[in-house]
């Protein structure tokens, strides 16, 4: 019998399995390492900020005394910012994505827009800040307001929203659109009633993740004029505002060691906000996907 047909291990020839196991171990290590580092970092932060973390920290206004300085206006400012940013960026971003993906396929305009959007995602955020300052704060007369800040952040996250929405739209198969058109629907009816609902999980996930990125942006907010000392809560979109990253930065640059503890606590709060937002994205996506796969 020729050796070609032999199916038994040769003596001591088990190295294929060994090599594979080694490779898997390597990959596992590559995954665990950053996760471990993140945990260590967070753990240290938690330890550092723990003495100051508490209900009064979250509900107090900033003050000269570290022990009584809190992050309430900063946190509220950040929350308002996120909301406004979402309100501005999502309709614009989804609309742009729908145009590019569903209507603009043939036109030169669409190609130009497409090229530019990918570029926009890579622009440093400080540039957005400067743009915001010139356009929103000064030219459009919004002043150093929540609206200006949110508009600037909206510009920042817009490319991400557009790209992730387009990806989500692409997951809806062409056959679905064809079927709708064959039933005598217009393009808009098709998009609104069938394509967008089907793409919704992806759109939601992408949008929430994009907006959560805006959470941590500091530079553009500094340029646009977020305050680092905010003794009040913003009462309208035209009010001045503060934000968590600004407040944290402000505390870190103080000479008193006690403020560092505040900063650490502030970072913990900021990270928790991000965590909650990301978790929300995952839950929303999960729920929607389960609804799609209902009754199998």
């Amino acid at each position, binding site marked *: 019998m020729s050796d070609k047909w032999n199916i038994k291990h040769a003596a001591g020839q088990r190295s294929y399995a060994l090599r594979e196991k080694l490779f898997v171990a390597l990959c596992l290590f590559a995954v665990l390492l950053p996760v471990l580092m993140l945990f260590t970092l967070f753990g240290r932060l938690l330890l550092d900020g723990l003495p100051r973390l508490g209900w009064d920290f979250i509900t107090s206004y900033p003050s000269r005394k570290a022990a009584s300085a809190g992050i309430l206006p900063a946190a509220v400012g950040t929350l308002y910012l996120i909301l406004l940013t979402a309100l501005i960026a999502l309709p614009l971003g989804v609309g742009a994505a729908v145009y590019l993906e569903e209507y603009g396929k043939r036109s030169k305009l669409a190609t130009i827009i497409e090229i530019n959007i990918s570029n926009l995602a890579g622009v440093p955020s400080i540039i957005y800040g400067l743009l915001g300052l010139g356009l929103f704060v000064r030219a459009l007369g919004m002043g150093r307001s929540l609206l200006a800040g949110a508009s600037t952040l909206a510009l920042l996250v817009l490319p991400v929203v557009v790209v992730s929405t387009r990806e989500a739209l692409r997951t809806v198969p062409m056959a679905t659109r064809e*079927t709708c*058109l*064959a*039933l*005598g629907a217009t393009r808009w009816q098709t998009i609104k009633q*069938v394509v967008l609902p*089907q793409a919704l999980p992806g759109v939601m996930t992408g949008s929430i993740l994009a907006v959560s990125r805006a959470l941590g942006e500091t530079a553009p907010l500094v340029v646009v004029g977020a305050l680092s000392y905010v003794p009040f809560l913003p009462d309208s979109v035209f009010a001045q505002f503060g934000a968590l990253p600004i407040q944290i930065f402000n505390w870190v640059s103080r000479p008193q060691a006690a403020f560092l503890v505040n900063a650490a606590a502030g970072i913990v709060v900021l990270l928790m906000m991000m965590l909650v937002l990301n978790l929300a994205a995952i839950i929303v996506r999960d729920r929607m996907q389960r609804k*799609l796969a209902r009754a*199998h």
Partner: protein
Amino acid sequence: MTDPNSSMSPPPKYSIRGLKAWFGSHEVLHGVDIDIPAKGVTAIIGPSGCGKSTFIRCLNRMHELVASARADGRVDLDGEDVYASDVDPVLLRRRVGMVFQKPNPFPTMSIRDNVLAGKHLTHTNKKETADKTVEAALRQAALWDEVKDRLDLSGSGLSGGQQQRLCIARTLAVEPDVLLMDEPCSALDPIATARIEDLIHELKERYTIVIVTHSMQQAARVSDQTAFFLQGDLIEAGPTNTIFTKPKDTRTEDYITGKFG
């Protein structure tokens, strides 16, 4: 035997003259002349790439939805040219329904909503008659008995053959008078195929059906008239019985007897 062109026979549903179609600058249909009789089944056969799918998509103006695709010529539906400038293709597609190769019920919708999808999409649904519409369409598609107790469950839980019948019901709910079918059984097993063919046999009493198929046996079983396409030309069209026993053109003969390639 009466001459099919005599004034005694009813006028054709579609009267097509000089139909040409392009993808960009590439001409894929080179001037097709054919009559599609009303209320009956016309089968379109031919090897891959012969233009049969393109042809059928010109009948409901789906062809032009692809970027850089266009068509030219006269396609008269009950005497009116569907390519005339005052024709709304959207309204045309409500009259001329289409069923595709891969069964694709909408995954986010229940069976009931799937059937009503066409009406919802076009805002022509009436709440009071919705239930009746659903039952009528599902009965016509020979699916009612199998799903009547689970109308609110998702359409994706059905078998392939059932899904295709659901798609047919969805198309029928819009009340078209022509049904275009682009290889509707290609993705189905023989039993599901037989049920759809049986269904076609019932449907042809009420609708004009044009079916593209790559199975000659299916064309022979199901249709009254058959048209053979080759590389963008209509080679021969005639009664199915004649085409499959005594075709006139050698190319038709060669294709049918398997002497191609």
